[in-house]
């Protein structure tokens, strides 16, 4: 399988701070890849560079075969991005938000109707289509945001901590939807703070201070660290990295 997301020495500095430090990443089509790491490790910055929202200081990245710096519009046509912070309009209804994004993506007519109905059904949001986004629960907001990123049938989905602050039942619903999307052939790159979610990914990348310090399947990571769960891997690896740095 060819890599659908590929970065070479991808780096981003903010003044003296290096948020992402020479990241080399290769993600195959159809994968679900989880980026984990402590706060400030550079996960969000990585996602923003891969979605053409932020230019890298150094290095390059290709997403769906397009260069993120030179062809941002072509990249944006192929991807769906869900920011960490809820990014839809609170004073617009579910339907209005979806219509707005469908217009931006140029999805019209019968295709739009069918897709919207399908998404509303899949997320079980049908009964709430006329409710303003500000009146939705946290889980429903995330579902709405997900729907808006799926309206143009993107090939790749970037999710930045999509289940943060969402109740367990909604989280399970959310994962059911993600599995459905994977079955349809979509590629997912997500960041998460929940290691049980990372466990569900095909591969996991552990970021620390802008660098990718481990990257493998959850099983291989656990085997290598001799740990029962990913939490052990996570804590152990980061402690080791921090200790190495101090010396």
């Amino acid at each position, binding site marked *: 399988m060819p890599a659908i997301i590929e970065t070479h020495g991808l780096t981003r500095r903010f003044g003296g701070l290096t948020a992402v430090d020479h990241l080399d990443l290769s993600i195959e089509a159809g994968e679900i890849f989880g980026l984990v790491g402590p706060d400030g490790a550079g996960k969000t910055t990585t996602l923003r560079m891969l979605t*053409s929202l932020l230019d890298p200081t150094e290095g390059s990245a290709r997403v769906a075969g397009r260069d993120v710096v030179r062809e941002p519009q072509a990249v944006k046509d192929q991807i769906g991005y869900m920011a960490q912070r809820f990014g839809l309009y609170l004073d617009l209804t579910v339907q*209005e938000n979806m219509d707005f994004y469908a217009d931006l993506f140029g999805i019209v007519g019968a295709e739009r109707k069918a897709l919207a109905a399908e998404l509303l059904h899949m997320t079980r949001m049908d009964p709430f289509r006329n409710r303003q986004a500000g009146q939705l629960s946290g889980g429903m907001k995330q579902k709405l945001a997900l729907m808006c990123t799926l309206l143009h049938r993107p090939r790749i989905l970037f999710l930045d901590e999509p289940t943060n602050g969402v109740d367990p039942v909604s989280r399970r619903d959310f994962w059911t939807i993600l599995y459905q999307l994977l079955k349809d052939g979509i590629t997912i790159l997500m960041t998460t703070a929940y290691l049980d979610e990372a466990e569900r990914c095909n591969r996991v990348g552990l970021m620390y201070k802008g660098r990718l310090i481990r990257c493998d399947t959850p099983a291989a990571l656990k085997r290598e660290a001799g740990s029962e769960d990913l939490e052990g891997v996570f804590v152990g690896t980061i402690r080791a990295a921090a200790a190495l740095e101090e010396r």
Partner: protein
Amino acid sequence: MSYRRTRAILIKELRHILRDSRSLALALAMPAMMLLLYGYALSLDVDHIPVMVYDQDGTDASRNLVRQFQGSRFFEIRGFGGYGEIRRAIDRSKILIGIVIPRGFSGEVASGRGAAVQLLVDGTDSNTSAIAVGYAEGVVQAYSAEWRARGGMPPAAPAIDARARVWYNSSLQSRNYIVPGLIAVILMILAGQLTSLTIAREWEMGTMEQVLSTPLRPTEMVFGKMLAYFLVGLADSAVALVVGVSVFSVPFRGNVLLLALTTCLFLFGVMFWGIFVSAGAKTQAEAFQLGILTTFLPGFLMSGFVFAIDTMPKVIQVISLAVPARYFVTTLKALFLKGVGLHVLWPQLVFLAVFAGLVFLRAVSKLKRQKVA
């Protein structure tokens, strides 16, 4: 630029506007409130009043009178010409007064039967005109006294009469002069305010990041947002004009279509300006302050609305060339009081159009350079 995406932004913005009923009510009440509050006269000091002379007499006596005007620091002779030239110069606001010395003036003066000079006055700016007429009368009286002392006039003859004829605002009502300019200034402030928050709000609410991940182009965002607020701006303009004409009974002598065209061009420019300011700010508070600073001060001080630009330092005069309110003030005053048409006002319209175009391009390029951080 995609029509569909621009329309999507327009519809979304209109929904925001209509759902925020308090802000909308405020936006619509503002022009009336401000116009009523500021609608009081302000006074001016006047010197270097531009005049044009029509010397029909062409004698020693008449030339002496012209010299008297030349010597006064209150007047500046901008040229000589007939009635036609004087009218054109007043229409274009090149001069404030046309001085007509009638044929046979020297004979009348010498005969002692009483001579007269005609002053054709642009009454648009009522305060300045009234003061200017007073000065002109003073100059003519001083000339009478001097001429009498030199024996050119019988001692018993009455002083030469300066007869002022005021054009365009014949009752010299200061409100007629203040209100059209005030409408322009108020619209500058409001229109700038309306759009200056719109992009900063999206950054603050976190909606910008989501929108930027779509194929939406900055051009479409700027244009769509501008159009939505343009509708509010048009309503504001209508309110201001209706209050101006009905409450302050300012006469409107010009062409309504020309007024509409100028208002649209002006609103485009100022609203793009608001978006430009907004694109550079990441919080609404910052955008608000920048917006007020760059619309209120130039609009109030450098538009020529009450403070004559001609009497300002050269640097300020040059800066004022980039203030769209200056051109809108000129146009509104001309349309309300003089009723002149496109053949006189076209340069103002051209400037407003150029300003709108340039600011639009700047806003788009600024938005393009804005990245998530």
